[in-house]
């Protein structure tokens, strides 16, 4: 999994341990709170749901890590995919988690459908990872948007996840841009991130001949993956 010198500021193993520490610590605190006999039945149900959703987030990361480690030996079928439909499936999957956090997630689709060339599972994992990141950094009450854009000249389709939260500082943005230019490699998007999620996303994008990137906004950021548009686009 290590892509050579300088590709990760800490080893992927350390980064994985760091990334898993937070959900495990949260689950432990939720479980300790559940042990309090004075809490109400409604509170107990809420804590149980939070424990389940937190474990599912952690399990997604472990699944991505396994997939990432086996990328070299695996064969991935690339096929024409409708990103709008995939984004809607992801939104359906993530809705309970976002709702539990007091946030929403929606697709900002295109009027005209288009196709891109990708492996459905890898693209889904990238977008789930970006969405998970967006959930963490978005402000309560805001919506995270999955957006699809086509660039005709370059024949590329961009699928992005836009969050509305604290802006990246200029220093962090410069670091991010520098690292994005030489992706795939570790990208430290935000201070608490080890960069593992984006490292995995860049590996998955690379396996599909694509790339990841980011756009900074005044009120948040968009992390995206760019993939080749499908020739079948012309038949639609």
């Amino acid at each position, binding site marked *: 999994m290590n892509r050579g010198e300088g590709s990760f500021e800490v080893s992927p193993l350390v980064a994985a341990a760091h990334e898993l520490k937070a959900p495990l610590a949260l689950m432990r605190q939720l479980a300790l709170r559940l042990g309090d006999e004075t809490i109400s039945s409604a509170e107990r149900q809420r804590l149980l749901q939070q424990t389940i959703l937190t474990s599912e987030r952690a399990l997604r990361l472990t699944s991505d890590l396994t997939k990432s480690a086996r990328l070299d030996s695996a064969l991935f079928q690339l096929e024409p995919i409708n990103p709008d439909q995939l984004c809607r499936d992801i939104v359906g999957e993530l809705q309970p988690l976002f709702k539990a956090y007091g946030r929403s997630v929606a697709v900002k689709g295109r009027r005209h459908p288009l196709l891109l060339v990708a492996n459905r599972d890898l693209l889904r994992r990238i977008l789930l990872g970006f969405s998970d990141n967006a959930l963490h950094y978005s402000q309560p009450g805001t919506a995270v948007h999955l957006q699809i854009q086509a660039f005709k000249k370059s024949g590329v389709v961009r699928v992005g996840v836009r969050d509305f939260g*604290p802006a990246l500082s200029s220093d962090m943005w410069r670091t991010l841009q520098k690292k994005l230019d030489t992706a795939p490699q570790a990208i430290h998007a935000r201070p608490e991130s080890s960069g593992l999620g984006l490292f995995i996303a860049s590996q998955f994008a690379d396996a599909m001949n694509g790339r990841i990137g980011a756009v900074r906004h005044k009120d948040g950021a968009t992390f995206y993956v760019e993939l080749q548009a499908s020739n079948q686009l012309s038949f639609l």
Partner: protein
Amino acid sequence: MTRVLLVEDDAWLASVEASIISDAGFEVSVAPHAPAAIELVDSFHPEVIVLDVLLAGSTAFALLNELQSYSDTGMVPVILCTNIADQFDAKQLKEYGVKKVVDKTTMYPEDIIAAIRGVL
């Protein structure tokens, strides 16, 4: 009632910790990030700050620097409550006003209360 400012960007963990602190008889206010914490320092006037280190937007040290810039806020005792407690030397943290470090990965509810009472 002693005022405790809890700075924690994970809403669910913040809710659990706030309940524990509140149940122990403290008045608690929660900030999800450093800018919100700075606003609450001015309006809520906390007597203790329980601070996560890895926050969305900026780290706790940006907030600690801000607090240390003023003589009144610099006096407010800070408890670091973090997943990376093993990376800090409590002696080095003293200059930031940090009185205690609590390890989030191993702490029990009573630990956070003991830490608060210990710095008052």
